[in-house]
């Protein structure tokens, strides 16, 4: 099963993207504005290209929004 949990939602893929940057491209998410966490580990933005994606990972994609 090619399944990932992204921001709390399970998503199935026909074929898993090999790296985090490819996953973001596939989801049409702008890399420059986000920070990622995989299984509780923060992934620095400059390592997205080298970060492998494996089935069943819990991925959090986080961004800045307005706040007080």
């Amino acid at each position, binding site marked *: 099963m090619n399944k990932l949990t*992204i*921001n*709390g*939602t399970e*998503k199935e893929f026909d074929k898993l993207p090999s790296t985090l940057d490819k996953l973001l491209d596939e*989801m*049409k*998410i*702008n890399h420059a*504005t*986000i*920070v990622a*966490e995989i299984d509780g580990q*923060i992934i*620095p*933005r400059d390592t997205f290209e080298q970060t492998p994606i494996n089935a069943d990972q819990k991925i*959090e*994609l*986080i*961004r*800045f*929004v*307005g*706040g*007080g």
Partner: protein
Amino acid sequence: MMQDKLIIAGKEFDSRLFIGTGKYSSNQVMAESIAASKSEMVTVALRRVDIENENDDMLAAIDQEKHLLLPNTSGARDAKEAVRLAKLARAASGINWLKLEVTPDPYYLLPDGTETLKAAEELVKDGFIVLPYINADPILAKKLQDVGTATVMPLASPIGSNQGLNTRASIEIIIKQATVPVVVDAGLGLPSHAADAMEMGADAVLVNTAIAAAGDPILMSKAFKQAVKAGRRGYLAGKAAISSEANASSPLTGFLRDEN
């Protein structure tokens, strides 16, 4: 006017008004309100990316050359969640300044002092410049400055309530005891509330809802800017004594009347 810089963790600020970026009707109004305020520090929050819809990039509307980003840990219910958010914020922005807030109670959004102190201790050790949002508790404020926070930020009244300086007496004690800048945060609803806090000797104020939710946010932003300046000058000038009786301002001699 003489040099009157606010210094936090060695960084100088000309403006004593910090602005929140929540609740604006658009990024355009937010950007213009921030510009009108002349604020040099603006708060932002971290949230999950919406994976189904397009995400708007609000950071693009903020000129980070002019305004230091102060990420907050809003949404954290305990120290552990706050520390996680802090590290994500630092990874996302490269900024180690942090508004630490731990608010387990969803109704009044009052901060949890015990968890805030615990998180502050850990984050200071990890190299963060920590600006903790707290209830107006003078004992907690002392403990936080003792563990190395860069400021203390007592609330005037609950977040977004616009009720004003309900915690005045306690904030006065915090100001008297403080060895770090005191920033009055949350609940200031009007420029006069901000002026009042500054006249009391607060070092700065943080305002969001009162500006963002005003009829004309840009005009309100200018009004807060002027109020903070006026309040600060009033404080620096040293207030004249209060008396229970009248003290004539005009001479009590040379009246145009015949004495009998």
